[in-house]
């Protein structure tokens, strides 16, 4: 959790996370929450973004402690697999709940 980006506990938008809220980062979290773990190229294809854009957002999420990376060999080339950390999954779920509260779902 990023305490600086969250509202107070009594606020209905408690759990809102500015780090996750950027559209591409929200989509990355949604994908990783569903897939558990996904290869970088698959995330790129699913979200239809360039490698550099995805890399930038993954770096932000990694630095926040929300995403972790694992390197593995595939077809003699090294591939990067991404997954949400436990903290990242909790932050994403809390952010999703905050968004639902805001739009009244």
């Amino acid at each position, binding site marked *: 959790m990023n305490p600086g980006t969250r509202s107070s506990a009594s606020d209905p938008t408690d759990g809102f996370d500015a780090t996750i809220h950027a559209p591409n980062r929200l*989509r990355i979290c*949604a994908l990783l929450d*569903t*897939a558990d773990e996904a290869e970088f190229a698959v995330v790129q294809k699913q979200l239809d973004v360039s490698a550099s854009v995805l890399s930038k957002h993954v770096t932000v999420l990694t630095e926040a402690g929300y995403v972790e990376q694992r390197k593995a060999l595939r077809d003699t080339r090294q591939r990067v697999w991404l997954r949400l950390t436990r903290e990242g999954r909790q932050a994403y779920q809390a952010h999703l709940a905050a968004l639902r509260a805001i739009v009244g*779902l």
Partner: protein
Amino acid sequence: MAELEHVQASTAALSATPWPRWFAVVLTLYIAAIPPVLGGMTASPQWLLPRLAWTAIMVMATTGYSALFAVAAARWREKTGVALRLDVLPKRATLPLAIGLPALLVGPAVAFRGTGQPVWLFAASGIGAAVSVAVHLVFVRLHRQTS
């Protein structure tokens, strides 16, 4: 929110990619083999082979199946680029299987031990194989619809 649901749906479709056909065949053969082998293991008096031989067959079949499962799972992950998760499959399909398949595989061995009629084992073997093929075809269809 709609965009998130779209991402989740397309990712779930990827996670629901069916097994390769060769592994579906392996799985079907393994399921079909379980009732007769289990029947032989628990038969009293012994049926066709000594019980120890049936047990050895079961151990070899399970070891071979486990090794092929590991290969199939690794290839599946390489092909799809996502983690192998069984919890993304529809519960309406997995729940009846989780309850029904063990009953289908173990029950006939009990019936065979009680009645001495091997027809229980062969019937369960055939039904198990048919269920395995049907489940594979359902997931192939489901995957095509959602992807």
